[in-house]
Each structure stands twice: as structure tokens, then as C-alpha cells.
């Protein structure tokens, strides 16, 4: 991941340099803080939910990665885990949940059904949630073993660390056309 710092102009005033340096420090420390306090929203629909249970409980213990706190309100969560198959009836609800989450937010496609539709290639199933919402990490497997999910969490943490974070982020929210968000 190229950070925003790479794109800075070579010739800069001392003030800009100082600001950029400060911004880099802020971004790094915010990234560090954010990657270890992922509040997850488990959007559990299907089989993978059983492995989600295992992953969250004592033996595999996603708490070690700071991602153990399931928040059952999307407004309090920053990691949306889409666990299981999403079909055409479920899709608008997933979209609505995603839109209710506050920035910064990340999405993990847990299992092959969420990633690509899996072997349910038929009239009812959405062929991957990335047709509806953006996805950061795909975890394959039907269902994935808990180790795979932990690996996915670690990949996401790496991604979060390398992103640019700002103290105040006033970027306008992206407006996605159509859909059911209200």
C-alpha cells in the first residue's frame, strides 16, 4: 500500500515539511491504535457463523488480535464481517447496514459465499458481496478454518496500519447510486 506521504512534492517549504512530518506521525499512531481495536459487526447469515462462533470463543480467541468485541449495532462497529451467503433478498439489508456504519470502516468477506457466491451459482444468490459493497479482505474456504480468519484479520491490520489516517477527516461520503439507503 502506497501511503499518502509518497506522493508529497519533492520541493516543499519548511512549514509544509513539518506538517507532512506531523501528519505522518499522526497517521502512524492512529493506524496503530485503530488496527488493535477493531469492533466487529458480525453480519452472520449462514454456515460460516458456526466457525465465527469458534473463532470468537476460547480456543482461537480473536481477542488476541483486538477484534473480539462484537457490536450488534452497525453504528458502533468499524469492521463489517459478512459471514455467509448473501442472497438477493438479503442484499439491500447488507447495503443498508454498511451505509449505517461510521467511517473509518472496513469489510471482511468471510467464506467463499460472501467472496464469490460459492457453489450456489443460481437464481437466488448474489455472486459475491463486492457487487454491493467494497471489500477489504477476502477469506476463502467453505467454511474457512479459524486460522484462516485470524490470518485475514492480520492482513487487514497490516492494511489499516499502512493507510493514511487523519485526525479530522472531512471528506464527503461517497454517494452510491440506487439502492435502499435512507
Amino acid at each position, binding site marked *: 500500500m502506497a501511503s499518502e506521504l509518497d506522493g508529497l512534492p519533492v520541493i516543499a517549504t519548511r512549514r509544509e515539511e513539518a506538517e507532512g512530518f506531523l501528519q505522518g506521525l499522526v497517521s502512524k499512531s492512529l493506524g496503530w491504535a485503530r488496527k488493535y481495536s477493531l469492533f466487529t459487526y458480525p453480519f452472520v447469515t*449462514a454456515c460460516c457463523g458456526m466457525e465465527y462462533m469458534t473463532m470468537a470463543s476460547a480456543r482461537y480467541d480473536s481477542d488476541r488480535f483486538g477484534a473480539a468485541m462484537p457490536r450488534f449495532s452497525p453504528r458502533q462497529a468499524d469492521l463489517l464481517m459478512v459471514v*455467509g451467503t448473501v442472497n438477493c433478498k*438479503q442484499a439491500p439489508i447488507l447495503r443498508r447496514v454498511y451505509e449505517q456504519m461510521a467511517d473509518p470502516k472496513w469489510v471482511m468477506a468471510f467464506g467463499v459465499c460472501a467472496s464469490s457466491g460459492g457453489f450456489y451459482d443460481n437464481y437466488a444468490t448474489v455472486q459475491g458481496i463486492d457487487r454491493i459493497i467494497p471489500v477489504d479482505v477476502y477469506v476463502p474456504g467453505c467454511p474457512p478454518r479459524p486460522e484462516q480468519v485470524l490470518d485475514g484479520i492480520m492482513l487487514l491490520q497490516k492494511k489499516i496500519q499502512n493507510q493514511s489516517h487523519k485526525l479530522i477527516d472531512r471528506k464527503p461520503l461517497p454517494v452510491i447510486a440506487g439502492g435502499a439507503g435512507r
Partner: protein
Amino acid sequence: MSEAKGVGGIDPRATPGSAGAGERPPVGTLAPAGEGELYAPMPSKHMVINLGPSHPAMHGVTRAVVELNGEIIEEMKLDIGFLHRGFEKSCENVTWGQVFPYTDRLNYVSSIMNNVGFALAVEKLAKLDVPERAKYLRVITSEIHRICDHLTLVGAMAMELGAMTVFLYGIEARDLLWDRLAELCGARLTSNYARIGGVARDMPEGWQEKTLKVMDRVVAIREEIGQLLNRNRIFIDRCRNTGKVSREDALELGFTGPCLRASGEPYDVRKAAPYLVYDRLDFDIPVGSNGDNFDRYLMRMEEMRQSDKIVRQCFEQMAPGEIIVQDFRYALPPKPLVYGTIEGVMAHFKLVMEGIKIPAGEVYSYTEAANGELGFYVVSDGGGRPYKLGLRAPGWPMLAALPVMTKGSLLSDLIPTFDSINMIGGEVEQ
């Protein structure tokens, strides 16, 4: 409350008990009457609230729209289909052997029972008999998965009523069993173990001893769970006399399995129409008396005990032998034959590309899965693919009856009721 004065037809200035104050609230629920100006009558209000589908208590896939009068459920509508993924349509487009992975994902907590149920349906249609050892292996794995299913149910039910410990214990015990199943069939959750005419693999060496050891540990954990819940005041208060179903209602609504037996009807397919080797095994069918949530919970605990007994008996009775029929019209030939002989290659090719030829006809086969009767209505046109594969999901009638079960009860009683019927989205919504 036709003469409306103020909010909800109640005049806030009227003295309690007088005509303007509306109906007296039920005793014990609100502040006692007669406290003059300090007393604020709390009129119960009609409201329609939405639960789910993305709600932890609705298991992610059921949308319930509840009309409340205060806290009392007056009317409830269920909207399902949020996990409909075209099971039947998909199965009609693959060969008979390829259906097994789809059946895994019906009741994903106890997938081997679905495998076995489907294999038995096809074997019934093809009039195929399975080797003895395969029958025992099917019963052993099914009963282990029954324990997994009930552990998950009890854990999830207790968790949603506030007892997180039970959930962690249950998951630990379930993981131990899944490890053993992973050694046997290679997957933790979606096992894909049964085949038409037998099972996929024999037990690895030392598996029996390891499994028995794990079962002892599971028994210990189950006893601990029992100690935590059986006399737990909070748990009993929330479960006893909630979600009650009488025996007649349960029959009319089509309940099967533990929910039917909790209401007092001693019907179990394993006893009524024994399949595999259940007629040679000594086990009891627990029957409840009240038909409430607590009975359904106790039913699960007792069934785990009986399943444990069944597995141990099977290990004792089992003899070495074939695990799949040696008929290459149905079972894949062993690899040396495939690589070494032309007959083996041809049989393998035909089975994989065209599928097993099942004689034309239709059959309804039923087995006792963890939640009740798992039925498959199979229609074959003589080809390599199912013409119709109808699934009778065990949890279906129980979910359909949820509005009946919760009518007139408190909203909070919906949670234990919904848990104790064990709705599994994969099988109900197919």
C-alpha cells in the same frame, strides 16, 4: 378508550381509578394506585416493531415484525427467505453424487445427518443395501453430530439469556468433537462423509480410543453445563412456562423431534421406523410434559446423554468389513483399479461424468435429525440427476408456528422460544 382525552385516551389530571384515567393497570406492574398527583399512569401503547433480519437474536436470517401492546405480543408476522439459496434448483442440476456437499449446508451444525438422510433416500429408491460397518459408521457420526447440534443450541440459548460461560463451554466441547470428525472426514464443519452405498472413509488407526476419550471429556463438560443451568434461577424464570405448546397443537402444527417430544408425544423415527442399526441399540427417548422452553432444553440435555450411549454401543458392536458397496454402478472403484484396468476407468468416468443411474420412481424417506424429522422426497426419471429433490426441513414447522407460540406472551419470551426451537436458516430456507 374511545373518549380520547390526552395521550392514549387518558386524562393526565384525572385521579387514578376514576373514569378519565382509563383502565387500571394490572396490579404489580406499575406504581400502586392512590398516590395522588405523583402517580403517573403509564398507558400501554400499540406499536409495531421490527426484529431482524440482521439481529443477533434472530440468527441473522429471520425478520419478525411484532405488534406490541406494551410488552405483550399481540400479533407477529414472520418474513423468511433471507437465506434462500436455491437448494432444490441447484440439486436438480448436478449428479446424484454431487448433491452431498449441498446437503452438508442444510443443517450446518450437524451436516452428517443430512448426508445420511439423503443417502438413505437414494438407497431406498435404488433398493440398495449398505455394508454393516458403513451402517455403524453412519450412526456413530450422526450421533456425534447430534451432540454437537444440541451443544450449540444449549450454548446459544444460554448466551442469549445472559450466560456467556455456557456458550464458551459448549463451543469447547463441540471443538473437541469436530477435531475428531476432521480426522475422520477431513473437514470440521461441512463433512461430506456419506456416499450412496456406504461412507467415504474408514476410521483411521486409533480413532476409536481418541474419540472415546474425547467423549468422556464432553460428558464432563455437559455435566458442568447442566450444573450451571438446571437449577439456575434466572434461566428457569425465563424458560419455564414460556413458549408453551400443547400436545394437540404440536401435532397439528407438524412439530417433530425434541420439540414434539417436549410436548409429550413420544414419537421418534429412530424407534417408530428404525433405519440403519437403531433397532439393535439400547437407548431411550426422553419425553417432556409441559412443552415449554425449559422442557425443550432438558430434552436436549437428555438426548445428548442417549447419543453418548449409542456411540459407545456402536463401537462395541462394530466389526471390521467393507465400508461401501462393491458395485461400481453406485460406488467409485478403488484407485488401483481406476489406474490399472480399463473397466475401472470406464466405471469411474461414467460415475463422474454422467452420475449414478437411479431407477425411475419417487420415494419419501425420513430420518431423525437433530431437530426432528428430516425428509427427502426424491423423484428420479432414471437419469444421472435428481428430477426433484424435495426437502422436508425439521425446523420448518417450528419456525412457522412461532407466531402461535408467542402470541400473548412478553416480548422477552420470544428470545428463549426462538432459541429453543433451534431454527437453522440453512435448512428452513433451503
